[in-house]
């Protein structure tokens, strides 16, 4: 009986092994990015991410046009085919279920308004205008932003603002980030971290 459970328990692993005959090693990603690439703290969520965006980021790390010592080293060890396989694997993992942020309601309401309506009098479009209806991501240039850890999102916006990240298409995120106040960054990062909400 115990043996049956053991074998059943191993089935997903066996299936995974069959799917990925080459050398992708998801568990090494999960050390930092969490089980199923769910993301935590400053490590972004990989699960459900747009595969074309995923590959482009790895290419940019490899080329040095996106900077992060750990990821630049990881990307240098990867072939194009590896990148595509990791992207395909993580993109198929489901989006996170909505989970409430512990931030206060007024801050989350401000974040929700920025995500859905933007702040056009300041020239800030809604996040969801370009990242999809629920921020689920659209294409290589417009990734999934919902379900990302608040610390990750806030850090990226700060990086665009300072210029230390500059691999955005036609400078769009630089333009938007420059206009966001610290309070707005905190609000929108907290709201987006809650995952897909309708």
């Amino acid at each position, binding site marked *: 009986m115990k043996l049956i459970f053991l074998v059943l328990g191993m089935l997903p692993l066996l299936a995974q092994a069959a799917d990925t005959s080459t050398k992708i090693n998801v568990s090494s990603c999960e050390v930092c990015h969490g089980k199923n690439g769910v993301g935590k703290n400053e490590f972004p969520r990989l699960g459900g991410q747009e595969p074309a965006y995923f590959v482009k980021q790895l290419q940019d790390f490899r080329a040095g046009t996106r900077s992060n010592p750990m990821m630049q080293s990881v990307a240098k060890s990867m072939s194009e085919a590896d990148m595509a396989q990791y992207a395909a694997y993580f993109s198929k993992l489901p989006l996170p279920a909505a989970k409430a942020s512990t931030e206060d309601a007024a801050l989350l309401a401000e974040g929700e308004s920025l995500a859905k309506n933007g702040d056009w*009098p300041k020239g800030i*479009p809604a996040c969801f205008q*370009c990242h999809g209806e629920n921020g689920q991501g*659209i294409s290589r240039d417009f990734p999934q932003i919902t379900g990302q850890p608040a610390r990750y999102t806030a850090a990226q916006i700060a990086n665009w603002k300072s210029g230390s990240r500059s691999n955005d298409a036609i*400078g*769009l995120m630089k333009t938007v980030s420059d206009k966001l106040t610290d309070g707005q960054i905190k609000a929108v990062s907290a709201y987006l971290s809650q995952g897909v909400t309708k």
Partner: protein
Amino acid sequence: MKIAILLFLVATSAFAAEEKTFTPPAERDIPKNEFGDAVRLGKSIFTDTQHFAKKYVGNGLNCSNCHLDSGRMADSAPLWGAYVRYPAYRAKTKQVNTFEERLQGCFEYSMNGTAPKSGTPELTALVSYAYWMSTGAPVNTKLKGAGFPKLNKPELAPDYARGQKVFTANCQICHGSNGEGIKVAGKFAFPPLWGKESFNWGAGLHRIDTAAGFIKGNMPLAKGGTLTDQESWDVATFVMSHDRPADPRAKTGIAAAKKDFHEENCKYGETVEGHVLGE
């Protein structure tokens, strides 16, 4: 001394004449009553026309694709700019039209669909939304920021090939390499600029001068004002040199419709890349 005072007066009166852009009421101030319900429905139709006014729409667009920030934004033909200017005589229809009739025109041309009849819930909701948004605005006035900005004629004649380069560098990431837009889960996340899912040849934005003004003021989204006037004219020329749904007014052929409706600022009826536009 007198001259100094005079100059001071001129300067201050010029300053006083500097008109502020109208600010529509905040969304949270929509009243919580039956009228407010109509306003909210109007906003829903405006931002998700595909869903809330589906039966009147014949393409892939929503009103808010061109009227940004849910119809609130100055220089992207805001609802508050339009509402206070009707009824008005329009050269397009050669008669005095009410605001409701103006909205019907949007459905016929920009949405390439069928105009909802007066008294339908959809049309009443849209009028209610525009009326509420214009709270406090003076009627029969051209407000600052109404319509799309007018650009001066460019130095060089607008050019398709230069426009194509501007398009590839700035527009393609959202609108696609063939102007087809980008769809996610069957809905357009970025609107199509030409082709059968876009506005038809009767919509105002197909005019190159109008499109150039819109582009200069608002495109790429969040980066309005960054293209030069010349680039805006060139890219508008490129975009409006592609085919789109037929002009519903062209009852007796393209040549007649070109003469009647498309004499200026427009490529309708011309041969571009071996194809007669409007066919």
